[in-house]
């Protein structure tokens, strides 16, 4: 069987190469963490996978199907969902309506609102946002916005969930809460690809880590080994190991 997600030799440049000849395979049930210093090309990679940017070279496959030239909405309906690093809710809509958009349009099949409502409610529950369902999304605080990013993505019933620094900017207690939520989502059968600076949060969830620097994969494998490798220590922490 083809891997759930496959990134083949992908390249993207904005004057300078931001993602360079990158290959990646994610199997059903994986939880992959991606680390690297700011500007290493992690978010660009996520944007390429989700279709928000187009690849200069290489291809993206979902379950063996080449989706390189498809739009983000098409990829979403194929089972790919993402959260944005800086949450951009539909501010004029309520939290429930925000999540309903994902439930109605993100499913692979046409969904009526009546059928989508329970899906949206479940996503709100899993993201622990049900109590503020009728709040205007623009009024949510940061944690609420991050949770809503998660709820909207979950409402599309993804096979694979791309998380972009979802723990960034949260307090330690909030991070721990969020980690629990993400673990539960993974346990529920959703494959996770997670970019994160807060490494201890990442380590609590993922079973594999890829490290990037200057658009290049510099290490991949067991989380502890990758984080301990000298290359990663140097580029990620900005200092050579002592």
């Amino acid at each position, binding site marked *: 069987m083809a891997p759930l997600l496959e990134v083949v030799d992908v390249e993207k440049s904005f004057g300078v190469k931001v993602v360079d000849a990158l290959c990646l395979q994610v199997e059903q049930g994986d939880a992959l963490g991606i680390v690297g210093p*700011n*500007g290493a090309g992690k978010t660009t990679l996520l944007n390429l996978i989700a279709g928000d940017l187009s690849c200069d070279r290489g291809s993206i496959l979902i379950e063996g199907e080449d989706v390189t030239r498809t739009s983000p909405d098409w990829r979403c309906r194929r089972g790919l969902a993402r959260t944005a690093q800086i949450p951009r809710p539909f501010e004029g809509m309520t939290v429930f309506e925000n999540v309903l958009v994902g439930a109605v349009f993100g499913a692979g099949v046409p969904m009526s609102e009546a059928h989508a409502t329970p899906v949206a409610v479940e996503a709100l529950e899993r993201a622990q946002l049900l109590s503020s369902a009728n709040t205007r999304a623009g009024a949510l605080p*940061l944690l609420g916005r991050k949770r809503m990013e998660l709820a909207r993505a979950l409402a599309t019933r993804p096979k694979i969930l791309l998380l972009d620094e979802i723990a*960034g900017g949260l307090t330690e207690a909030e991070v721990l809460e969020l980690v629990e939520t993400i673990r539960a989502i993974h346990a529920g059968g959703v494959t996770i690809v997670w970019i994160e600076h807060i490494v*201890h949060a990442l380590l609590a969830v993922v079973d594999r880590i890829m490290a990037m620097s*200057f658009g290049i994969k510099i290490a991949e494998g067991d989380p502890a080994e990758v984080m301990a490798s000298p290359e990663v220590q140097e*580029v990620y922490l*900005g200092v050579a190991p002592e």
Partner: protein
Amino acid sequence: MTLLEVRGLDAGYGDFQALFGIDVDVAEGETLAMIGANGAGKTTFLRVLAGQVPTRAGSITFEGADIGAVRAHRRVGIGIALVPEGRKLFGSLTVRENLIIGAHPGRPGRWSLDTVLEVFPLIRPLLERPSHVLSGGEQQAVAIGRALMSNPRLILLDEVSLGLAPVVVKSLYEALPALSEGGATVLLVEQDIGQALSVASRVVCLLEGRVSLEGRPADLARSDITAAYFGMPATAGSEGPS
């Protein structure tokens, strides 16, 4: 002598508040490093000083005058220059033009095209190139040079090391003392604690929009910094500089 005095500063975007009651002093001639995790409010703080984000409460006094109401395009005239996060060079201008546009007719002084090129000799052969073809490190050098051209009293550096190779970062940091010698006071924002501590005469740490630590690098224990940086007990330092 105090060059900049910030008292009780609140600021944010839309519904989101990023800074809460910040008090910071910057003395003439010092190099102050502001550190903190992603989303701690460092960049917002610099943007407030440059006039790009309005203050909601509190005061900013620069050289004895309240500058809270001075509009962004007039801040450079009073001696504040920002090197923004992500360099933000003008892509349709050549390198030379990018530097020249930084000059301000009301602020002659030590820095000119020639003196900037002395500090950053790597720019010299690139002068006639369009700036968007430069590498990240070259762009950063141009961005710093561009800010110097206005002969600022206070130069604000946002994430100079972002996405740059360690060797490039090192060379950029080596140029920093030249800025101080040129008469500029330096306020730099960094995620890379190691780099920041190596050049700063004083450190301020932000955590969730509040000052969590302040002091001279020599007086601060690593564990204190880690705690202030991540907002957790000093013992749980699973990351950060080792």
